[in-house]
């Protein structure tokens, strides 16, 4: 991001980076008898990206709508920049939001759209126009700023939506499934942009997504939700560690080899002592499960024996990981447990 948009007059000072910029306390939300959110509590520090994960219907969008004042919580409260949820009008000045499936006016240009929203937030027209130009540059849309939004691609609309979310120089930015429907390159570009928002603006970012591998790469903290409640939260490392304490998860490793090497690798690993099961997955991944010694985790040396044997057999190793060591594994494990 090349430019930092100057905060307008009247902006509320950003608290020190050690103080949470967003704090949710025991938030509940029901639709009639259906409880969509239960005891949602977490906090977010400035400059950090918090990944909001969960299967469809987990309550992510409801949580974002409550935290962005679109919906009132049934009980509980939250604070943004020290402002209590009892003052939604004041909170709306501190947050920027990219809702899921955001629509755009059909006959407006990107520049006019951002200028209009800048003015809604109290900027004078000239200032709003200047801010719009800077934001268009930030999201890489300068060349298309004067084109009608209806001519934009999906990725360009998402970037324009993010620019709109930044028009008031927010302290907390909520992005609900921003990468949905984007091609891989578009996803990477957008995630890079999100990282820059947190780093350059020192804004807290709440990112809801299904793209677990990307979330793992750009998020500092994670909240995993299922059936309306949090099943894990903390830094990415903490959440991964939480799952890897499960001994059963530590008894497997995954090794990736070239397609031509799959058969020799299988025969090599099959001959090792202590190997209970060997599965081949698409992409040349071999999952090796060791004998579970009364629930005790397998020692690192046992894992290294697999690598040692493959190296000795002259089989090139393209990848290696402890099963359960990825956010995707944690997500599947925690959400499955919760469903059970």
């Amino acid at each position, binding site marked *: 991001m090349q430019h930092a948009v100057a905060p307008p007059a009247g902006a509320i000072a950003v608290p020190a980076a050690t103080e949470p910029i967003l704090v949710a306390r025991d938030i509940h939300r029901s639709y009639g008898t259906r409880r969509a959110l239960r005891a949602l509590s977490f906090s977010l520090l400035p400059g950090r990206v918090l990944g909001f994960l969960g299967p469809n219907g987990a309550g992510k969008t409801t949580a974002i709508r409550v935290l962005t004042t679109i919906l009132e919580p049934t009980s509980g409260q939250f604070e943004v920049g020290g402002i209590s949820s009892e003052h939604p009008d*004041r909170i*709306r*000045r501190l947050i920027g939001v990219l809702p899921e499936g955001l629509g755009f*006016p059909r006959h407006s240009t990107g520049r006019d759209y951002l200028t209009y929203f800048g003015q809604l937030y*109290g900027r004078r027209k000239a200032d709003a126009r200047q801010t719009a130009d800077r934001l268009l540059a930030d999201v890489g849309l300068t060349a298309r700023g004067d084109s009608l939004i209806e001519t934009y691609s999906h990725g360009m609309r998402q970037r324009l939506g993010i620019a709109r979310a930044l028009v008031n120089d927010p302290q907390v930015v909520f992005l609900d499934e921003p990468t949905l429907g984007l091609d891989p390159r578009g996803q990477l570009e957008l995630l890079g942009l999100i990282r820059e928002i947190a780093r350059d603006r020192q804004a807290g970012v709440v990112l809801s997504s299904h793209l677990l591998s990307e979330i793992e790469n750009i998020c500092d903290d994670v909240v995993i939700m299922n059936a309306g409640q949090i099943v894990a939260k903390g830094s990415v490392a903490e959440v991964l560690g939480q799952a890897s304490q499960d001994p059963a998860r530590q008894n497997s490793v995954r090794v990736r080899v070239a397609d031509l090497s799959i058969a020799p690798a299988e025969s090599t690993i099959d001959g090792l002592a202590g190997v209970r099961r060997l599965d081949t997955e698409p992409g040349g991944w071999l999952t090796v499960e060791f004998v579970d010694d009364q629930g005790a985790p397998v020692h690192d040396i046992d894992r290294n024996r697999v690598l040692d044997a493959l190296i000795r057999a002259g089989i090139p190793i393209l990848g290696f990981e402890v099963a359960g060591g990825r956010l995707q594994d944690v997500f599947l494990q925690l959400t499955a447990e919760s469903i059970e």
Partner: protein
Amino acid sequence: MTANPRVWWLQFRQELDELWVGGKALNLLILYSVLMSITAFLLATNSELSLTPPRTMIVVTIQSAISFGLFLGLIIASESLSGERERATLEPLLLTPASHRQIILGKFLAALSPWPMAYALTIPYVAVLAQGDLALVPALAWGALLGTLVAIVFTGIGLVVSMWSNSSRTSLFVGLLVYLATLLPAQLPGEFQSTAAGAAIQAIDPLEAVRVFLRQGFVDVRPVEELWPLLYAPVAVTIGVIGAIFLSSGGRLSLTAGAPRILSMVARRAEGVGEHAT
């Protein structure tokens, strides 16, 4: 960051862009012109047969202009908020600190904007059909005043319906029903219209009251003093509708429309009574 104090003006301009640059208002005006042309052609044909005097043609043309013209505002307002809900453009608006009452005001004024254009388009038709009759100018002036009143009423009704609807089809349908209901009194048998009940319905229905006012004022040439009671309904309903918009927009606009707040309160109270009873 403080909210813009002139949100209504920003919203009004934004809506005008969408309506006029987007072509929706122009399309509706073309439809309006076609309807007015048909009406004028039928009246002119009758005139050639010496069946309809010029004054009657002036009044009928202005009555038609009001009936067709108010429909423009009703259609636009009916899908203003429900349409934004459908297009997912309402949420970013609700996320700003902008006053919802001012947003509604901007939308209301924009939805009203085709009416003056429509009425201006009517003037040449009336001028030709008037054949030099001196009632032309006062009839047009009264038509503008009364037409504006009922245009406010119907645009306001459309907006209130739109606030409480998630679907523009639903709100358009409800708006159309209201419109047809106000046209009903004119279709009632003449004998019924002369009864007390018929007179009451005419007095309550703002559109019918305006139609009767113009007919009695310019065709029957009755003095204005006798016709004032006919204006009570349009004025009262206009005030009522503006009040309803003011009250409805006082609370927060919601992303998903539900029952009016008053109905929700009644429902909750009823539930409370039920719980106590058990």
